[in-house]
């Protein structure tokens, strides 16, 4: 099956600034693809090019086999979009907004069912300017679904929302995936991407610096798992001698790097066998968040060094 979204050599320049600098990726149908990056990384520019709202400077972009810029009208009938900080006509209610979109798209969607789906049915007759931030985003999501889209573009849909509202949006995204829709999710919440996405691409300074499933990215770019116990330098020396493992002492904690999960049991057995005092063990592993911060930090450092080179 051909990809829902295909991007090759995409470049978007504003004057001399390359907001997007030669990126490539593809999104298989029915998957959740998360586009991660710090503010100003090029996420929204890329998303808007995919939605047909911006013209690419260079490169090839296909969404559902269509050129978003030249075939925008046809594409817009098949995609749903919820922008950052969704705004609508202030005096219009969610029910009326869906009726409006229903008439424009000529569909038969039931406003009440759609509002139920995004957990906004109780606010069906409240005016937009009285809705909370989370409720407004939910309406944006409902409108994005009015035309029964094959792809949903969600641009930072949970930014600024409280944890409860965020979880409600996540539930809808999971439902969209179950229904077989493709979801293109832009976010700077790493937890969100890790929880929801099948595949992730991290973009920074207009370039994709890592891509794959969250687990693949962590494996490729994260630090190995570690076990820590509260113990003495003598315990660290014992473990190093008996296990040949790298053990370090820091702030009264002995940390041992684990090369695989079976190592955890060996380390614990050796600690107990040492007869030395120890307490409270923990295991830690890099999250997508750690990897993201490290990759972005490394790139920024590299850029600073390059800029500092005479």
């Amino acid at each position, binding site marked *: 099956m051909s990809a829902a979204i295909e991007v090759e050599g995409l470049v978007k320049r504003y004057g001399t600034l390359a907001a997007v600098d030669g990126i490539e990726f593809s999104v298989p149908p029915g998957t959740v693809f998360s586009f991660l990056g710090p503010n100003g990384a090029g996420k929204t520019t890329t998303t808007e090019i995919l939605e047909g709202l911006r013209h690419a400077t260079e490169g090839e972009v296909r969404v559902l086999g269509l050129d978003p810029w030249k075939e925008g009208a046809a594409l817009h009938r098949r995609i749903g979009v919820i922008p950052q900080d969704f705004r609508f006509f202030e005096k219009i209610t969610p029910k009326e907004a869906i009726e409006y*979109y229903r008439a424009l798209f000529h569909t038969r969607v039931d406003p009440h069912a759609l509002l139920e789906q995004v957990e906004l049915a109780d606010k069906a007759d409240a005016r937009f300017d009285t809705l909370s931030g989370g409720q407004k985003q939910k309406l944006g999501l409902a409108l994005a679904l009015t035309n029964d889209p094959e792809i949903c573009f969600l641009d930072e849909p949970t930014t600024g929302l409280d944890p409860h509202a965020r979880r409600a949006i996540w539930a809808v995204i999971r439902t969209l995936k179950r229904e077989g829709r493709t979801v293109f999710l832009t976010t700077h919440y790493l937890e969100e991407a890790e929880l929801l996405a099948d595949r992730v691409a991290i973009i920074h300074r207009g370039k994709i610096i890592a891509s794959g499933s969250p687990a693949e990215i962590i494996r490729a770019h994260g630090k190995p798992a570690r076990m820590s116990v509260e113990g003495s330098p003598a315990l660290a020396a014992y473990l190093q001698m008996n296990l040949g493992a790298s053990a370090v002492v820091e702030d009264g904690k002995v940390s041992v790097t684990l090369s695989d999960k079976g190592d955890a049991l060996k380390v614990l057995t050796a600690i107990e066998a040492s007869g030395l005092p120890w307490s409270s063990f923990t295991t830690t592993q890099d999250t997508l968040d750690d990897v993201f911060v490290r990759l972005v930090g490394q790139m920024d450092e590299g850029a600073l060094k390059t800029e500092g080179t005479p």
Partner: protein
Amino acid sequence: MKARHIAADLRIVSRTYLRNPVALFFSLIFPIILITMFGLIFSAVGTGAVTLVVVNEDHNPQGGPTAESSAFLAALNSTSVVNVQLVSVTPQNFSTYLGQNDYSAGLVIPAGFQNDYLNRTPVNLTLYTNPEDASSTGTVVGAVQGVANGFNLRAVCSGTSCAPTIGFTTLNVGSQVYKYIDYLIPGLIGFAILTSPMFSMVDIASSYRKEGIFRQLSLTPITRAEWLTSRIVWYVGLTFVTAGIMIGAGIFLFNAHVQLTLGLIPFLVVGPFFFVSLGMLAGSVAKTPESAALIGNIITFPMMFLSGTFFTVSSMPMGLQEFAHILPLYYVIDGMNQVMLFSNTSRALFDLLVVLIGSVVVFLLAIRLFKWRDE
């Protein structure tokens, strides 16, 4: 262009408008306040010297006016109560001319006036007055009578016959007298046609762009032309309501005399068509809401005062009168004056044509320049 899209958007516009108390105040209450205020302030204002339009048929062999007819008109002018204005109209069309151009007094000096006067042969002038305008009729009749008496006396003293030679017949002008309130109604309808769409559309064009609502709409099947058309349809409807309120208030509160003819309808349609499009155009070329408001005000304010809204254009200095002719609202208001007051169809059609052509041009420009996605 799909009617379904326009109808769907029209429902949004109407709900947005009807749920906005400020908008409702300016549409329904403000017109009554405006017409009452101006009606009360200006209904008692006097008009000064009465314009007396004259057709002088008494020519010398060289084609110019005869000395005695010129002396008669000079004497009328020197009374300071009438202001003589010579026109070239045939006596047969004179009454209609006076009515269509809103003159309440006219005088015809017949051919042979000088000859008859010098030969002491009775000669009859024809004086047109408007009985509904008692004060100016009295002024004009008094002035003409006085000057005729002076001429007759001079004839008596210098001649042999004592019989008065110059007499006059009074006829009614083929129109009624127009009061300030009569002009105020078309003027204020024009004011509403200008201000309501202009201020609203300039604001919408910039704020919807800033808030991303145009971006949102660009992802739906509605086109810019359909969106703008629904706004035009809404403001046309609103203009009918506002015009109805103003006409009703003018008639019931101030006993205004305006004709409610079907000829008014085209102006209530093309007027909003023009100014909704112009507002959208102004808002589209502006980069920020602040500059949009500035551009809107620069366009709106001269038209608001110089197009015949509160005062007739003919009462303004000549330079401003010429300036008024480049203002689109002038043609809307003048057209409404022609159909509501003077029954001058040909001039109304000309005004309508000017506004219609302007509307089509501005609409097409607005559609072209108003973008709802960043290109």
